[in-house]
């Protein structure tokens, strides 16, 4: 009676073949984790394996989210009932017994501590990191690499069918019939097509110099932090600006230009002569990018120790760059413990800022500061705070 064949259902057409609630809710769970992880952006950004291996994704170990319930506090004592050959006094090992298994439905226990690896696309991380960030003091400069773009402009009686402007054509028809009500409702004469024209546009040309101190005093950790900073800046800038040149320079007592791949692998030994680096940047700037037609930026990363006798030359070189550039940023890679006095280079950049030249400084003491450093230099509000208003720099006539 209970299982007559009328109740038998076709075996394949169950809706559950097509749709899995479990998977749907699992995706929702993953989305929630992603939101939660986003709040830990600094830790993800600090993961250095992205730079070294050129991976397009980052793996982050995360815990499963817990749906909280009221629970008694852990008492440290566990007791329960087992089964098998055991007599009072027997020791059954150190492990924590699994209690309360086999509960179904409402009584089910959440399981904590299950870890899973989530993959994040580097592009997504750039999205989060670079939300509302932009180059400071960027100004339109008409340069040699002027952009031209196709723009819509005007109408014509001939054109490709896809560019037919129906509203406009209809208007023409109405106009014509207003003067002559006996004419047909539509003629070829009424058709109007949108036209395109080439427009020259002033470009936002920009060149960004990354200058890295690779002298002996920069430890492996220091270099790694600086490169991590440069990596995210480069990635973000490339996405935000189409025509952007990034120049990679490293210096010890001498300075060299590198291509991008080598720059992120560069190591060095020897003393620190900051002026050598600044001179190289200056030379490249003059030969390749005319500051009058190009926004030039300098970002310099160092541990702040410069050769004592290099103070004056470094100051002169930097001042020269800062006067021509839109902005000069300094990232100091400091030790875990903050130093009691200002480093030479930090003081140097302070001097520049005091002279009214657009510049900024930031100390990175550990991996978690990298994201903050990026925000510091590129967030709109902090740019306003620096007083680096467009007029304050030396102006070259556009």
């Amino acid at each position: 009676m209970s299982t007559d064949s009328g109740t038998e259902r076709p075996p394949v057409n169950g809706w559950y073949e097509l749709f899995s609630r479990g998977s749907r809710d699992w995706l929702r769970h993953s989305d929630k984790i992603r939101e939660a992880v986003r709040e830990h952006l600094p830790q993800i950004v600090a993961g250095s394996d992205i730079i070294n291996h050129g991976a397009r994704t980052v793996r982050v170990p995360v815990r499963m989210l817990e749906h909280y319930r009221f629970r008694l506090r852990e008492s440290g004592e566990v007791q329960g009932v087992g089964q098998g050959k055991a007599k009072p006094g027997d020791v059954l090992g150190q492990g924590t017994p699994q209690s309360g298994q086999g509960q179904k439905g409402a009584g089910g226990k959440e399981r904590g501590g299950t870890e899973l690896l989530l993959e994040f696309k580097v592009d997504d991380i750039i999205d989060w990191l670079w939300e509302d960030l932009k180059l400071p003091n960027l100004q339109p400069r008409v340069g040699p690499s002027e952009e031209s773009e196709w723009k819509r402009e005007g109408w014509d009686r001939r054109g490709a069918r896809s560019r037919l402007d129906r509203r406009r054509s209809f208007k023409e028809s109405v106009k014509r019939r207003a003067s002559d009500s006996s004419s047909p409702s539509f003629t070829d004469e009424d058709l109007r097509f949108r036209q395109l024209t080439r427009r020259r546009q002033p470009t936002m040309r920009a060149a960004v110099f990354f200058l890295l101190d690779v002298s002996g005093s920069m430890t492996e950790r220091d270099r790694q932090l600086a490169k991590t900073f440069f990596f995210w800046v480069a990635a973000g800038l490339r996405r935000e600006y189409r025509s952007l040149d990034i120049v990679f320079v490293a210096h010890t007592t001498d300075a060299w230009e590198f291509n991008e791949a080598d720059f992120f692998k560069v190591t060095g030994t020897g003393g620190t002569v900051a002026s050598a680096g600044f001179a190289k940047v200056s030379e490249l700037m003059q030969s390749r990018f005319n500051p009058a037609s190009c926004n030039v930026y300098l970002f310099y990363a160092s541990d702040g120790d410069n050769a004592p006798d290099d103070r004056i030359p470094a100051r002169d070189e930097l001042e020269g760059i800062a006067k021509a550039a839109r902005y000069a940023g300094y990232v100091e890679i400091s030790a875990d413990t903050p130093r009691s006095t200002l480093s030479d280079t930090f003081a140097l950049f302070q001097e520049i800022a005091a002279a009214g030249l657009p510049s900024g400084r930031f100390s990175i003491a550990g991996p978690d500061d990298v994201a903050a450093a990026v925000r510091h230099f590129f967030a709109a509000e902090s740019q306003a705070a620096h007083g680096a208003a467009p007029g304050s720099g030396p102006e070259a006539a556009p």
Partner: protein
Amino acid sequence: MTREWRDHVPRIEELARKLGLQWSPVIFEAVPDSFMTEIAVYGLPVRMPHWSFGARYIYQLVQRHMGYSRLFEVVFPGNPGHAYLASSNGLADNILVTAHVLGHADFSNNNLLFRRCQDQGSEHIVEHAASHARQIERDIESHGLNAVEQVLDAALSLEQYIDVDQVLRRERYPEYLPAAAQPADDAFRARFAALDAGVAAAAQSRKIRAPLPPHPERDLLWFIATYAPEMESWERDIFLAVREESFYFYPVYATQIMNEGWASYWHARLLREADFIPQAAYLDAIKCHSDVVRPVAAGEQVALTVNPYHLGFTLWEAIVKKSGIDAARRIMREDDDFSFLRNHLTRDIAADMELFRYQRQQNGPIKVVAGDIEALRESLLMEKYNFGAPRIAVAEVRNDGTLILQHDSKLDGRGLDPERTRKVLEYVKRVWRRPVLLNTVDAASQPMELAADSVAAA
């Protein structure tokens, strides 16, 4: 599902009827293993969406993949009942499972706790849950996923806080205290009333507003849905939907040992007495039976848990042997796991089953302890009290709308985990929309007040 299996179903049913089982019709359906997993995770074939189910689903899926456990069937009581069978079951599995399902159907049709909860309107729980799920999908469309999820976060985290002694559709508390009984035959009062009718009537009609709640209220889902100061009506409906489903889950939870034992007893007995099952299938089915009711995992000497199938099965065998099937049926009707274990798990049976109690002090070794049968029973039942959740009740709603919850730390033996509690209070605060406080005790048993974790609210 094999046709061969279908042919066996009427014969198994006929035999079961002859042996005295009474059940409402059951609809059998063979479903893929992944769907079986979903049913086990959600507790119902179609249920409201929530991310926490997703997390449990993946966990289960991994467990299944690693071969830790396998589901043969899930039965839902009702009229008609629904039985879902894994389509990977073989013929022998399915014969066994059919007999097992009939045992469950008989149980849920006769056990008083099940009957009571079904009479409250859950006789069509599968359909009701599906309609709740549909309604919540509509809510998501009109109010957005985040708004609905906030309500579900709160409602599902309070899932166990119902009061099955109350009816499903509860009335609000009376708003005023009952008027004190008037001794009408008092001579003075009679004269006083005669003096000035208006004054006497006014004195009588002065009503006193009842405190809210009038007594500690443990039906948190109902209380919040009914008395939250600013809840939207669709939010209240979600709370009541979760509550209705909990009314269905409670008997399943509170009779698990009895119910599984009863079904195992009957599948074993039906198999034994059925003469129509092919020899090969019979042997396979018997092997499957012994896997299901096995006390200790293969290759191990000692288990730190007790298999509820094995415990229930052993107890029912002993009861039938001692008092006969009629007495067993009466016990099946009247008991739940608490009374069942206390009345029928005797010292002898525990010794035969080699049950023992163990303890582990702070980071120490797990030690088997001697103990009497009372302690053993309590250990088995301890986790099941109050739907497996700490005892928490509404103590008071202050004039400003603050909700005060009280944890019964004396009965539970210790205080609540403060971190988790704050998170749950945060869930609740989002729907209560006024401050929410909870009183419990800290590690040193000193009173402690917990409030919603305001950091998480930001």
